[in-house]
């Protein structure tokens, strides 16, 4: 085959260009740590990396949600612990019997203070939102109706769900302040399913009857105490603030309105009857705390799954798109050697022709 001068040039320049192209790709890999730089470099790799990145982004979002949910549940738990302690203190106020009028006034003021504490707890806020108002989180869960002398629930019984990623939805993240739904426990009302009768040590009979009202959304517990003399005392409450209010007033020997006088028997029976309810409510608080624990446990499980999944996805993403540095450096050395050899040969071949030898 005849070899012309142009063939030398084109072969050598093509060889140089090919080697430089390889060198450019490898040096890019070293500079960025990535194996490919555009979809056509590795179509499948690109598509997989988009998928992994999408999952990682959704996982990151879910982990953010989990962190927020955990903080929210922890805050709820703290409030419920304090609520439980307050109910214990309220229970203590119901324990003494008799005493001097000063003692009774002291108990009344103690109960009133605890009532106000309970109201504060019921109107707890998290990120400026009332946490026990259901979806109506922009208004306090409870306000005092000074006409009827009762505490009225302002919220609803809607529960907020959260998406924790990978199709996992956490239902009922929030605790409602009151509900007529007996399957939905609230720490602020007495979840009485059916009428209940108890007998007090004084011999008086107490009948608790639930009356569920949709407006306002609350269950009124009607209480009827019949003493041994067949005297009947009727009153009602809907929540633990009402309950504390009743106890405080009972120590002052007045009805819920603060003016209607109660007999000594009525006062002591009321205090004893309500002390009984307090035990039940405290038990409810513990149950709600238990439910929080279950939710937290579910969140922790999901967090573990997400962390594991994130690690796997990240590893897969790295395997697909990250350049292996040792291999890349070796490849650079190989290409560099070939390139230098070609340059050296080119310099020799191109620099001389027969003309250089003609004298």
């Amino acid at each position, binding site marked *: *085959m*005849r*070899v*012309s*001068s*142009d*063939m030398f040039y*084109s*072969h050598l320049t*093509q060889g140089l260009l090919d080697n430089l192209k390889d060198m450019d790709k490898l040096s890019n890999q070293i500079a960025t740590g*990535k194996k*490919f*730089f*555009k*979809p*056509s*470099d590795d*179509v499948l790799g*690109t*598509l997989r*990396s*988009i*998928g992994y*990145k*999408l999952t990682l*982004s*959704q996982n*990151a*979002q*879910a982990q*953010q*949600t989990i962190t*927020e*949910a955990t903080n929210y549940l922890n805050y709820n738990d703290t409030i419920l612990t304090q609520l439980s302690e307050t109910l214990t203190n309220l229970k203590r106020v119901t324990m003494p019997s008799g005493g001097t009028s000063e003692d009774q006034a002291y108990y009344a003021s103690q109960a009133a203070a605890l009532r106000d504490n309970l109201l504060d707890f019921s109107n707890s806020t998290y*990120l400026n*939102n009332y946490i026990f*108002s*259901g*979806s*109506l*989180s*922009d208004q306090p869960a409870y306000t005092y109706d000074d006409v009827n002398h009762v505490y009225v629930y302002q919220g*609803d019984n*809607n529960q*907020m*769900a*959260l*998406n924790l990623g990978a*199709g996992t*939805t956490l239902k009922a993240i*929030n605790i409602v302040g009151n509900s007529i739904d007996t399957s939905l426990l609230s720490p602020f009302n007495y979840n009485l399913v059916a009428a209940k009768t108890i007998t007090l040590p004084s011999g008086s009979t107490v009948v608790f009857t639930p009356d569920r009202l949709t407006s306002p959304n609350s269950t009124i517990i009607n209480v009827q105490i019949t003493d041994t003399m067949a005297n009947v005392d009727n009153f009602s409450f809907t929540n633990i603030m009402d309950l504390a209010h009743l106890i405080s007033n009972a120590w002052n020997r007045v009805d819920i309105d603060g003016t209607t006088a109660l007999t000594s028997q009525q006062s002591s029976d009321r205090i004893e009857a309500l002390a009984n309810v307090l035990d039940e409510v405290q038990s409810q608080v513990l149950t709600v705390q238990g439910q929080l624990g279950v939710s937290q446990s579910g969140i922790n499980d999901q967090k573990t799954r997400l962390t594991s999944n994130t690690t796997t996805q990240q590893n897969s993403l790295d395997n697909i*798109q990250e350049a292996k540095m040792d291999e890349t450096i070796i490849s650079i050395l190989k290409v560099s050697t070939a390139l230098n050899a070609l340059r050296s040969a080119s310099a020799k071949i191109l620099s001389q*022709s*027969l*003309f250089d030898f*003609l004298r």
Partner: protein
Amino acid sequence: MSFLTIFDIGKTALFASQAQLGVISNNIANASTPGYSRQEVILTIAAPVSQGHNQVVGQGVQVAGIRRQYDALLQNQIDLAQQEYGKSTTHSQNLSYIEQVFNETQGIGLATPMTDFFNAWHEVSNNPQGLTERSLLLQKADTLVNSAKLMEQGITTTLTQINSGIVDTVSKINAFATRIAKLNEQIAQVEAGSASGTANDFRDQRSEVLRQLNSLVNVNAWEDPTNGTLTVTLGNRNLVSGSNTNTLSAIYDQTANYIYKLDGIDITSKISKGELGGAVAASGNIQTHLLDLRKLVASLTSQVNVQHTQGYDLNGVQGTDFFTPIGFNVSDNSANGTLSATANNLTPLTLDNYAVTFADDGSGGYNYTITNSSTSATSTAAYDPAGTTVDFEGIRFVISGAVTATDSFTVAPDLSKAIQNFETAITDPREIAASSSAATVPGDNANALLMADIINQDIVELNSTTFTDYYQSLVGQIGSQSKTAADGLTYNNNFLTMLNTQRASISGVSMDEEAANLVRFQRAYQAAARLIQTADVLFEDLINLAGR
């Protein structure tokens, strides 16, 4: 044989050597000239002269002609390969531009903004009454909008560049055609009446121009053996015939595509190779990808709006369109009828086209039929020329005016403006509808959760895939096309290089060879001169002898 014969023979040798040296210098001068074919002198023995006594004496050497080393078959292969190479170059180059618009490996594209947008809905669902989360969502929506607009801009800019390149290419094709016609004329003049003389340099020039023309478009060429002129055809029409040319023109049509006409005849379908063919192919591919992207954005707009209008905002008001809704294009094929189309129910709304036709009801009136072109679902009833309002698949069709059975309308979602009009319609964070009912505002996050979940839903208009799957598939198609085009370019480049190497082997100039020939013919020239000198000495000796 006389002394004078020696002079004559020496002279022919001298002239032959001169011609050789001239051709060698031309070869050396054009060693790097594209398209140049090495030339060599054809020598023949001069006709001998009989001098009687059975003596036939040679008369030296004769230059029969100058031949270029040229393989017509190989050149034809190069021309064809040049068409493929030209196409691959333009196709690959333009697809690589588009690939950069969708370069998810560098975080460029829609995947991240789209995911961030739906993640922002998650954030709103975590704290539905939070204005910070709501403002963040609007920011992410704007980022999504801007990303889509930037992508569309990148694609349309590339299309504009392709179109601009097409105009240049057509102009070059016409210039090359004119050049070939001129060279045809020159070759015909040089070779007219000459049995042996060929216009080597003009032919090389014409071959080179033809090669360049082939790199631009898929022409065919054949030479007229009677006068050496080349006829060049494009799409079975003459581009060059002898010294005449026809002008190729590119005319923009209503669909924003070029129609190519040669001598007034539409040859668009015949443009398949060369840079022009590559531009046409790339433009077609890119327009398909642009339509897919617009469809994705239109579908996202529709789905987000549907869900958003089912929720309630912080003011307890039912949600409005989150993004500016897609409009409709109406194609009117009627003499007196009019039709307007507006979206009136987002839930059943599709991205399909609709045909509105009319049929004689047999009693002087007409029935209208609206047909979904994709599903063939129809709605038909009596038509009232005074004004007929039809709600079908989320669109309100208002038709009026006298119609005939041949009248029709086509209603299609205006996908061409799906991204151009893509804007976040909500500006007040309080108007984000995160709740499922007015009564549960502000703490209810049910609608926000459904909004966030849209990213995981299969969308019928997108071949029943999710937004991200559809987008991934789009990136995959672009990546694959770009890879195929780049592989094609590499193959065609290698093939062309191989053919050019073969051509260089035959037609290329070797400096070593020319140097050797230079020495050889320099010596031949010196020998011829010495021959004349010797004859001169002999002749002088003879004259001196006679003068004594």
